[in-house]
C-alpha cells in the first residue's frame, strides 16, 4: 500500500448519463465559447445523432455549426482535403470550439483540426520539437456515439502516420448521453470492451499511481457488469433484455472507453496493449482480442509483487470474493477470472472468438518470426511507448499459445 513517484493528469471532464447533453451549452459558455463547430461521421448522421445535440442548444442562444459528415470507415488515414475544408469553415465562419460526435475517426479529425485552428495549419506539417504542444488549445468536446478504444480521450493525435503527443490534445469534456448512443455491432463492442479490460487490468496491477488505480478499478467494474450482457443481448435476441437495460449497458461501456483513454494517457508502456496491437496486424484476432489473450501471461510475467496481481480480484469480483479468498490464491484466481471471461465470450459468440493464440492461427513455429517482426516495428515517434523486450515478448507469446500458466521457474 505504498505510492510511488508519479504524475497524473486528466484534463477531460466527464459528463455521464441521462440528459447529459443538456449541460453542454453551459459547459461551453464556462469555457468562453459561444459558437461550436460539430464534426460527425456518416453513421452518426444516418442514425440522427445530431438531432438531440441540436435540441440541447435550442434555447442556449449559441450558434451550432454542422460540418458535412466524414467517412467513419476502417481506413485509419484522415482525408487532408476534408481537414482543409473544415479548417476553412472554422476560420471563415468564426467558430470558437470543436465538438466531435462519433468515435475514433471523428476524434482524430477533431484533434488535428484543433491543432490547425489554434496553432496554425503549418504545425501539422512540422516535425521534431516543433510538434510539441505546450499550451491549451481551442475548447474540444468529445461525444461518443458508441464504444471507442480509448484513443479518443487519449492525449495523442494521429495524422496519417504522424503522431502528436500532448495533454492539451485530450478533450476538455467527454459527454456520454444514452440518447445519442448508436447500437454498435457485436464486433465493435467485443474489440472495444476487450481493449478496455486489458488496459484497465494491466494498469491496475502495474501502476503505483493511486489516481490511475482509481480510474482502472472503475473501468474494470463497468466492463465486468456490462460487457458480456451487452454482447449476449446483441447475439441472442431471444434473451435480449428490455431496451432500457440494453441502453444502460451501452452507456456504461462508453464510460469505460472514456476511462481507458485517460489511463492510456497516464500509464506508459502497457505491454499487453503494445503486443496486442502488433499481433493483430498479422493474425485473425482484433487488437482487443489479442490484448486479452496475451494479458494473463503479461500479468504473470511482469508483476514483481504478486499481491498487486491478487488485488485485481477486488474490481473483478467484488468485495466479498476478494475478502474471502486467501492472499496466496488471489493472483491465480485473478488470471483465471480473465480467462473465464474470454471463455464465456467464446461460448456466447458460438466459437467465433479466439481464446488462445492458437485459436488466432498462430502456431509454435511462427513465434520466432513474430518476435523478430517486433524488432522491425519500432514505436511511433512522439509516443511514450517503450521498446519491447524481445525475450519477454517470446515468453508471453509462447505461453499465450495455449493459454498455459507461465513456467514459474522462469520467474525465479
Amino acid at each position: 500500500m505504498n505510492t510511488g513517484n508519479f504524475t497524473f493528469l486528466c484534463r477531460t471532464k466527464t459528463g455521464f448519463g441521462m440528459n447529459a447533453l443538456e449541460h453542454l451549452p453551459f459547459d461551453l459558455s464556462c469555457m468562453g465559447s459561444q459558437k461550436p463547430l460539430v464534426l460527425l461521421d456518416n453513421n452518426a448522421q444516418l442514425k440522427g445523432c445530431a438531432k438531440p445535440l441540436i435540441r440541447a442548444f435550442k434555447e442556449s442562444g449559441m450558434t451550432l455549426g454542422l460540418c458535412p459528415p466524414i467517412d467513419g470507415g476502417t481506413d485509419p488515414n484522415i482525408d487532408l482535403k476534408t481537414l482543409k475544408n473544415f479548417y476553412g469553415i472554422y476560420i471563415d465562419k468564426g467558430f470558437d470550439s470543436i465538438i466531435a460526435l462519433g468515435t475514433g475517426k471523428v476524434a482524430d479529425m477533431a484533434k488535428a483540426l484543433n491543432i490547425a485552428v489554434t496553432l496554425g495549419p503549418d504545425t501539422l506539417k512540422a516535425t521534431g520539437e516543433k510538434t510539441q504542444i505546450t499550451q491549451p488549445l481551442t475548447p474540444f468536446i468529445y461525444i461518443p456515439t458508441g464504444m471507442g478504444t480509448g484513443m479518443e480521450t487519449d492525449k495523442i493525435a494521429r495524422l496519417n502516420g504522424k503522431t502528436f503527443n500532448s495533454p492539451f490534445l485530450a478533450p476538455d469534456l467527454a459527454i456520454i448521453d444514452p440518447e445519442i448512443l448508436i447500437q454498435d455491432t457485436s464486433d465493435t463492442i467485443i474489440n472495444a470492451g476487450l481493449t478496455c479490460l486489458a488496459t484497465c487490468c494491466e494498469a491496475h496491477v502495474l501502476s503505483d499511481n493511486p489516481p490511475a488505480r482509481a480510474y482502472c478499478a472503475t473501468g474494470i467494474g463497468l466492463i465486468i457488469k456490462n460487457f458480456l450482457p451487452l454482447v449476449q443481448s446483441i447475439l441472442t435476441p431471444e434473451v435480449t433484455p428490455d431496451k432500457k437495460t440494453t441502453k444502460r449497458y451501452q452507456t456504461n461501456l462508453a464510460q469505460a472507453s472514456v476511462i481507458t483513454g485517460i489511463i492510456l494517457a497516464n500509464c506508459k508502456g502497457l505491454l499487453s496493449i503494445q503486443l496486442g496491437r502488433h499481433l493483430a496486424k498479422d493474425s485473425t484476432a482484433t487488437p482487443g482480442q489479442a490484448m486479452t489473450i496475451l494479458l494473463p501471461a503479461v500479468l504473470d510475467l511482469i508483476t514483481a509483487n504478486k499481491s498487486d496481481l491478487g488485488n485485481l480480484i477486488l474490481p473483478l469480483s467484488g468485495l466479498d470474493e476478494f475478502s474471502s479468498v486467501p492472499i496466496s490464491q488471489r493472483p491465480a484466481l485473478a488470471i483465471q477470472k480473465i480467462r473465464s471471461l474470454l471463455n464465456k465470450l467464446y461460448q456466447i459468440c458460438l466459437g467465433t472468438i479466439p481464446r488462445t493464440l492458437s485459436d488466432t492461427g498462430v502456431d509454435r513455429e511462427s513465434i520466432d518470426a513474430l518476435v523478430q517482426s517486433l524488432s522491425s516495428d519500432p514505436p511511433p515517434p512522439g509516443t511514450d511507448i517503450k521498446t519491447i523486450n524481445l525475450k519477454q515478448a517470446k515468453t508471453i507469446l509462447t505461453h499465450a499459445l495455449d493459454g498455459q500458466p507461465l513456467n514459474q521457474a522462469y520467474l525465479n
Partner: protein
Amino acid sequence: MHIPDYYEFCCRVNIVTDHHALEKIPELLLSMGAKNPMVLTDKGVQAAGLIDIVIGAIDNKLSIKTIEDQVPPDSDLKIVNRLACVYHEKGCDAIIAVGGGSVLDTAKGINILVSEQAQDLMQFTGAGVLKQKLKPLIAVPTTAGTGSEVTSVAVIADHEKNLKMLFTSPFLLPDTAIIDPRMTLTLPPHITAATAMDAMAHAVEAYVMLSKNPLSDAHAIEAIKLICHHLVRVIKQPSDKKGRLALATAATMAGIAFSNSTVGMVHALGHSMGSVCHLPHGNCMAILLPYGLEYNLHKVEDEIAELLLPLAGEEIYACTPQKNRALKAIACIRELNQILNKATGGTHPICFKNIKDKQGNFLVTKKMLPEIARTAMGDGTIFYNPEDLDYEDCLMTIQAAWEGIPLDRSKIKQG
C-alpha cells in the same frame, strides 16, 4: 457500484508526487511559459523553514520576484487586493502557493484579479463567471488534509462587510499540485493526526453522500486505504518519508473525491464548531465523523458497510456478518481515534468536552452547544446529507460528541 442517472467528474490538476517533486517546479512553470513567480505563503510555513526548502529546490532556475508571507489564517479581501498590486509591481507571471487552505484561497483570489486585469473581485463571485484560463498557479500543500490543491473553489472573506465570497470555476483549479513529503515531514504528531482525519472525513463523506459516483468512490477508497495503512505508523515514526508521501497523496485523492461528490453533516457541524469555538478543523472532523455515520446509518447502511474493507482490511471484513459491517466500520473509526489519542500523548481529542487551549481553559463548554447547532443549520453542506437534520438533531449529535458517548439512534427522526 453505484451509478447515478447523471454525474460529472473533473480534476484537471496535474498531480506530481515525488520525494523530490519540488525540484520539478522550474520545468513545470517554464513549460507553461512562466519564469517570474510570486511565492505566496503564511508566517507559520515561513517560520517552519519550508520556504527555504522550496527556494533551494528551485535552485535559481526561476527568477522569484517576491516572497509574500502575509496570508492570514482566514483569507482576506484586503490582502488579496494588496498582493495583486504587488504581483503587477514586481512583474510576476505566476504564483507558487505554499501552504494550506487559506494560502490557496488567497492565491486563487490574486490569480483572478491579475489574470482578468480587474480591480473588483466581487464581480467574479458565484459559479462559472470566469471564462478563460488564468495565469499559471502551482499549489504546494504543507498539510496532508485540506485537499484544496485539487478543488475549484475559493472562499475569500470581506471582513469589513462581514461576508464570505464564494468563487467556483474549473479555471480556479491549480495547474499543478506538488506533493512532496518534505513539506509535511516536520508536522507534529497531533497535527498529522488531525489533518489526516480531515482527509479521512472528506473521503468517507464523499463515499456515503447522495451525490457520489463511481469515480469519486474509487478515489475515496484509495484515500481511505492509504490513510489506514500509514497514519499510525507515521505518528509513531514521523520521519517515515514513504508514509508522509502516502498520507499527502491520500489527502489529494480525498480532495478529488469530495469535490466530485459532496460532504455532509460532519462538515456542517465541523464548520460551526470551528466558527463558534475556534477549534482546529481536523479535530472536529475526527470527533464528528463516527457520529455523522451513526446519524445516517439507516439511509446509507450498505455504503458504510462497504467502507469496512478499506478501514479494517479483508480479514475483518470477511469475518464480520453483513448486518454488522456498518456498525463495525463506525467502531473502527472510533478505535482509530483512540489509537491516535494514545499515540499523541492525549493531544488528539476523542470528544469535545476535554479540549483545552494552551492556558488550560476548556474550548467547548456545554453552553456553547445550542449556538453551534444553530450555526450548523445555516451551513450549505447540510443539504447534501442523506438524512435530513433540524436544530434538535444537530444539538443531539453535538451533545453526544461533546460527551464522547455513542449517538442514541432511537431519537433520530427518520425521514
